[in-house]
């Protein structure tokens, strides 16, 4: 089993210093669990904080040195086709470039491999050349997909925490630097310094002032049903009827 992790030039959300993204460190852990010789792959002008991945479980790094405004997808696809890994890991949204999260999708489309998003665990399947990928769904649900290799996988934030950083391994790991080229892609539109914007909420219109106030503060305007001092048995019946009406205790039945 051969695993490869796509790495990007992350930026710390608080200090704004360059760092390895948490999701990519989690991907490095999942890759190290499958393949002790898992390598990382980065395309960009400089390696910078990507080196940190060597201390998070990866055995080596490949750096495709290219201009900052070049499209990395063709070079990455060519590199992956030569390395021929079974699993390519990526974070949900790489940073440092356009931050669109499109690179794994473009790679999977170009290579003709299936892409499985939001993976939290990978186990080799019973049949040779297959993999069981556990995907995270909203509200804590999971989906187990058996898929034929090779695959591209993006990692969910709920995956196991990154391995602790090992300084000596980060120093020891080997980095293979190669020059690469890519078509220049200039993003359209203008660029400005980032400004955080307020989230727009629903503006309640009409109704009485009391209704508008209730809508703004999140309470229910009309108020619900209130039962004062019912017998406990009657209260239980009412509660179960209410729950059934909203279709709630699904797992109970």
């Amino acid at each position, binding site marked *: 089993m051969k695993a490869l992790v796509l790495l990007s030039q992350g930026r710390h959300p608080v200090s704004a210093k360059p760092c390895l993204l948490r999701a990519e460190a989690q991907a490095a852990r999942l890759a190290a669990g499958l393949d002790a010789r898992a390598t990382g792959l980065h395309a960009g002008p400089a390696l910078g904080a990507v080196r940190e991945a060597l201390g998070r479980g990866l055995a080596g790094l490949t750096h495709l040195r290219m201009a900052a405004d070049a499209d990395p997808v063709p070079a990455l696809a060519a590199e992956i086709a030569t390395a021929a890994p079974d699993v390519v890991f990526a974070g949900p949204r790489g940073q440092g470039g356009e931050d669109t999260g499109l690179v794994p999708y473009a790679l999977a*489309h170009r290579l003709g491999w*299936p892409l499985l998003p939001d993976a939290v665990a990978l186990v080799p399947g019973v049949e040779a050349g297959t993999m069981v990928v556990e995907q995270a769904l909203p509200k804590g649900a999971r989906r*187990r997909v058996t898929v034929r290799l090779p695959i591209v996988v993006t990692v969910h934030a709920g995956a196991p925490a990154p391995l602790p950083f090992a300084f000596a391994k980060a120093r020891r790991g080997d980095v293979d630097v190669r020059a690469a080229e890519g078509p220049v892609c200039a993003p359209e539109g203008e660029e400005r310094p980032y400004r955080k914007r307020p989230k727009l909420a629903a503006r309640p219109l009409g*109704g009485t002032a009391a209704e508008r106030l209730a809508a703004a503060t999140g309470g229910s305007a009309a108020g619900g049903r209130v039962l004062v001092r019912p017998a406990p048995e009657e209260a239980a019946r009412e509660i179960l009827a209410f729950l059934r009406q909203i279709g709630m*205790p699904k*797992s109970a039945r």
Partner: protein
Amino acid sequence: MSRPRRDPRAERVARQIAAAPAGTGARPRFDLFASPAAPVSRRDPRAYWAAARVVGGARLRFDLSLLGQGGGPAVHEPAGEPAPKAPPVRIIEDPAFLVVALADAPGGHLTTQDRQLLGAARLLADSGGGAVLLLASLLPEDAGAAGADRVGVLRAADPDGRADALAAAILAHAPRHVLFPETQAGGDLARRVAVRLGEPLFCGAEQISAKSVARPARGGTVERRCAPPRLITLADGAAAPHGRVPHEARVLDLSLPEEAGDARILAAESVPADPATVALGEADFVLSAGNGVSDFAAFRALAEALGATPGASRMVCDAGLMPRAAQVGASGTVLEARCYFALGIAGAPQHLQGIAKCEHVLAVNTDLHAAMVERAGLAIVQDAQLVMPALLQALREEGA
């Protein structure tokens, strides 16, 4: 703003008596008693206020946002039950273009972000006489009220089949814009469609208008802004939901080709969330204990029987009766649950902040005037210690 503006110069010219021949040096003359060409519309202060009057109710009330919106006759209805009046449905028969909105709509219910998405789609469509086409796996009932002119079903379940069907629909109907929510499912579908069509994707837009969209780039250091492209994904809170004018929500038959499943995917099985182990922030149904609960064995048994994730108030966590991870509220976990069941919780403001996003709230409390009783959809003024065994017994009888 609402009244037409007068043009005094035009009125003066209209009143001028035929000009004397040039060179005679006669001064211009005006007929001050001639009736104007367009009669001056007089302002009717009664109709002006009557339009804003909220009909019904014992007290006279005005909705100032409606002030001067047209002078209907003053409504003098006897106080009592107001007649239910359905607002007129806006129908766009022959749209200039289509704006497609892809809703997640889990189980046929529009989420908050789906409503924001429809609000943004409405904004783009109304700028040029377009119509909004809502696509979802299950058609939501309130799609028209949320602002959809047309609705269509996107049946395919597996992500690749869904993306193929959507790409085919985009090529067939050539919409001007396609909006996706930047959620797990919506963002995945948007990226798959973008690589299939080979078009750029403007993802995670934080601001949207008919003229421009903006999003963060390069690790959130810069903001990229351009005219709205075809494929856009919207971040949470980028647009406000559509207002009150309901739209038609006509069902459109897209006649999408049935896609065969991906041969490389050998099996897929869904594993429902285990309420006992799921993180509190992700749970769908939370049963919470407060100071009114003393029998925690019964509380845990009830949580298990109901299939709910156990939570607790700050009082209970401070006392060490429940782990700190179970604390609900501003200093604990802010819930995303659809249903919240509070046992013996009065509802401090910090606790109510934690359940602000919960759709249905049930409360059992001894105090009729507690804030939680006011917040709840069903409130029972009774001792939680008595209700818990009765509820367990009722569940047992139901199961038997």
